C-alpha cells in the first residue's frame, strides 16, 4: 500500500522580465508583443513512491527543488506535468501557525488553526487538553497570542498540528522549535508516529535527523533525482556532491 505516488512530475516557473500584474500592462504587452519570460524548471521528471508507514527523506542543496516538491505534495503548488496521488489525510508543516491571530486568545487560536487543518469543533474538543498539555501552556490558555513569546507561539502551533492526527506528515525543517527539552519531545513524537505506522516525508539539512528518522531518501539536484534508496548512501552522495560543488 502506497501513501504517496509521485509519477514523473515536472514543475516550471515563469520568470517574466517585467512582471505584468494589471489588465493595462497585459494589453500594452499584447500590443507590443512582449511575451518574454524565462522558464525555470524547478523539478524535472521526478518519480518516487512512499509506502504507508514509511519515513522518507528529501535532501539536496539550496535551490535543488526540495521545497517545490514538498509544496506540490502539500497541494499548494500544482505540477505542470505528471501526477501525484495521495492516500489518506495529509498534514503539511510548511509553516506553523497559519491563520494565527495575535488579537485572539490561545484557546480561540487553537480552534481556528484546527479548522484550517480540517477539524470540526467536536474533534478539537476531544484533543483540546492534549494540545495544551503537550505544549505545556495550560496556564496560558486565555492569554492573547500577541503576549506569547515566539517559543510559546511555535510550541502551541506545533502541538495543535501534531494532534490533528493526519495519516501523512510533510515536514519542512520545523524541528527547531522551542528549547532542547521541547525539541526532544518533538522528535519523540515523530518516532511515536513512525511506530504507529504514520507516513512521514521529511525535508531537512540536518543530516543526522534524516539518518535517524528515515530509512529511504532521495537526493535532489537541479530539479532531478540523483540518488534514491538507502538514506546512508544518499547522504554519502550528497556529501560528495557538496565536495564537488566547493572544489569547482
Amino acid at each position, binding site marked *: 500500500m502506497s501513501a504517496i505516488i509521485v509519477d514523473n512530475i515536472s514543475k516550471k516557473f515563469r520568470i517574466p522580465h517585467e512582471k505584468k*500584474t494589471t489588465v493595462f500592462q497585459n494589453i500594452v504587452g499584447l500590443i507590443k508583443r512582449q511575451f518574454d519570460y524565462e522558464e525555470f524548471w524547478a523539478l524535472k521528471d521526478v518519480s518516487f513512491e512512499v509506502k504507508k508507514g514509511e519515513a522518507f527523506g528529501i535532501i539536496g542543496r539550496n535551490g535543488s527543488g526540495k521545497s517545490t516538491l514538498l509544496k506540490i505534495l502539500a497541494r*499548494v503548488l500544482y505540477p505542470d506535468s505528471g501526477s501525484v496521488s495521495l492516500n489518506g489525510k495529509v498534514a503539511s508543516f510548511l509553516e506553523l501557525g*497559519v491563520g494565527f491571530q495575535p488579537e485572539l486568545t490561545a484557546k480561540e487560536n487553537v480552534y481556528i488553526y484546527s*479548522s484550517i487543518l*480540517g477539524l470540526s*469543533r467536536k474533534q478539537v474538543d476531544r484533543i483540546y487538553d492534549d494540545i495544551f498539555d503537550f505544549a505545556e501552556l495550560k496556564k496560558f490558555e486565555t492569554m492573547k497570542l500577541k503576549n506569547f513569546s515566539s517559543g510559546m507561539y511555535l510550541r502551541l502551533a506545533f502541538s495543535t498540528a501534531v494532534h490533528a492526527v493526519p495519516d501523512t506528515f510533510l515536514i519542512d525543517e520545523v524541528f527547531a522549535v522551542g528549547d532542547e527539552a521541547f525539541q526532544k519531545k518533538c522528535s519523540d513524537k515523530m518516532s511515536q508516529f513512525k511506530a504507529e505506522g504514520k507516513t512521514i516525508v521529511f525535508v531537512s539539512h540536518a543530516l543526522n535527523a534524516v539518518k535517524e528518522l528515515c530509512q529511504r531518501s532521495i537526493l535532489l539536484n537541479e530539479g532531478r533525482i540523483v540518488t534514491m534508496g538507502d538514506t546512508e548512501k544518499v547522504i554519502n552522495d550528497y556529501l560528495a556532491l557538496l565536495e564537488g560543488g566547493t572544489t569547482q
Partner: protein
Amino acid sequence: MWQYRELIRNLTVADLKNRYQNTSLGFFWSLLSPLLLALVLYFIFRHLFGSEQNFAINLMVGIMAWRFFATGTSASLGAIVGKPSLVTRVYIPRQILTLSNALANLISSLLEFIVLLPIIFVLLGHLPVTVLLFPLIHIIYFWFIFGAGLLLSSLYVYFRDLNQIWDVLVTLLFFCSPIVYPLSIIPAYLMSYYRLNPVTLFIGMYRDVMVAGDLPSLYSVLVVIGFAIAAYLMGSLVFSKLQRRFAEEM
C-alpha cells in the same frame, strides 16, 4: 468542502467582524450609506417619478438589491488576495475563501433587508404575504453573486487593477438598472437588450414580492435560475483553472 465547515464558519464570522469593525453598532453605521443614498435620490427624483406608485419603497428595495450584488462582487475581489497565508502556506480547498466571503455578504444583506421590512410596513400600511417568497429569490441571487465572485476573485490574483475596472462597471450597472427610474421610461426598441441585465430581473422580483404583493412570473424565475447556474458554472470552471497558479502569483 463539508469537512471544512468549521473553517467556513470561522472565516465568515471573521469577515463580518472585520466589516463592522468589531462593534455592535457597526452594522448600523453600514446602513447609513444606503439609507442616505435612498434619501438623496428620493428628494432629487421625486419630482420626476414621484407620481409612480410606491416610489420611495421601490427605490429602497432597488438600492438594497443592487447593493447585494455591488458589495458582494466588489468584496469578492479581495477574497483570495487578502488571505495569502491560507493560499501559499497550507492546503485548503480555495473556493472556501470565496464562499465565506460571499456568505458574510449574504448575512449583511439579509440584515439590511430585515431592516427594510418595518419601513415597508409603515409606508405601505401592510406587508404583502408574498414576502415569504423573499428567501427563494435571495438564494438564487446569492448563487449568481457567488458565481461572479468565483470568477472575479480568481481573476484578481492575476489582474490587480480589476478592482478599478469593476468599480466603474458596478456604477454603470446602477444606472442601467431600474432603481431610480421606472421601467416605463425605457424605449420599447431597447427593452429586449435592457432586460438582459439579470439585476433588473432580480429587482423586479423583489418589488413583486415585497411591495406589490404579486407572484413573480415563472418566466423570470426560470431566467434568473438560468443566470445563477451559468454564473456558478463559469465561475467554478475559471476558478479551478486559475487556482493552480495562485501560490506562484501571490
